[in-house]
């Protein structure tokens, strides 16, 4: 299993430095969508790292897929809205807003 990183060039660079091979830079929303779809199909990827600001630029349908995906697990970093989708889910299934 491997880790994959998708994002802007600056974002990806640091992860390359940490030794991650599957880093894809995507500068525009179309490229981003295309790359994410491709990586989601890669069975060798266990964790996918995304920048949370990029998440707004992809189609809603893909966002939903990412929210619910378990394998690979998607981790978004940077920005505060990272926990929002999970927060909504907690509210829906437990009935109480437990986050914060």
């Amino acid at each position, binding site marked *: 299993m491997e880790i994959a990183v998708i994002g802007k060039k600056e974002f990806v660079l*640091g992860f390359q*430095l940490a030794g*991650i091979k599957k880093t894809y830079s995507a500068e525009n929303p179309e490229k981003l969508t295309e790359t994410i779809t491709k990586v989601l199909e890669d069975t060798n990827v266990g964790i996918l790292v995304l920048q949370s600001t990029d998440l707004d630029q992809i189609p809603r349908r893909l966002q939903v897929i990412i929210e619910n995906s*378990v394998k690979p697990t998607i981790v978004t*970093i940077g920005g505060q809205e990272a926990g929002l989708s*999970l927060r909504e889910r907690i509210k829906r299934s*437990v009935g109480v807003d437990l*986050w914060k």
Partner: protein
Amino acid sequence: MALNVKPTRSELIALKKRIKLSERGYKLLKMKRDGLILEFFKVLAEAKDLKNQLAEKYERAQRMIAIAETVDGSIGVKSAAFSASENPVIDLKSKNIMGVVVPKIESQSVKKSLTNRGYGVLGTSAAIDEAADAFEELVECIILSAELETTMKRLLDEIESTKRRVNALEFKVIPELIEARNFIKMRLDEMEREELFRMKRTKGKSAAKAAKLSAAHAAE
């Protein structure tokens, strides 16, 4: 509700059995739901903590790489990044929380020593080392966070479906069964009363007949 049951004694016995079974299942499921939520609380506390750590580490890593870029220039950082070897490998194992299979992610060779990073120590500055160090820490944190996030998603799914089942039993299945049982009980009682009345009437009629007969005999 349109009761689609036959008011017979055997049906009543079967219904009583089903009500008992449903109630037992309901109690069990309720316990499962509470247990899952309790388990979820534990994971949630951990995840919150980790999320904050993640943000912190990300900021630090961003800062470090910015410094490295100023010191070595973006070409220098890129070349170091390209020569970085040793892919961090993660291993997926599974763990069981109350019947929910959650992943346990183990990672290898995320943290590397200076000499194992792949780029030349002499050709690069200390800023790059620090940036690499910060990002390795970040990756470690990401792996942990991924594990917790998946665990939470799975637990939430399970909680949701268990809750649905508990509510379906509590508000739909059990009330309907009880209604059916009451209906049968009522009908059986009614039939019994009818039967009793019929017998009394027959008795009355035959008694009247007998009285008439004896009266006729006496007249003769």
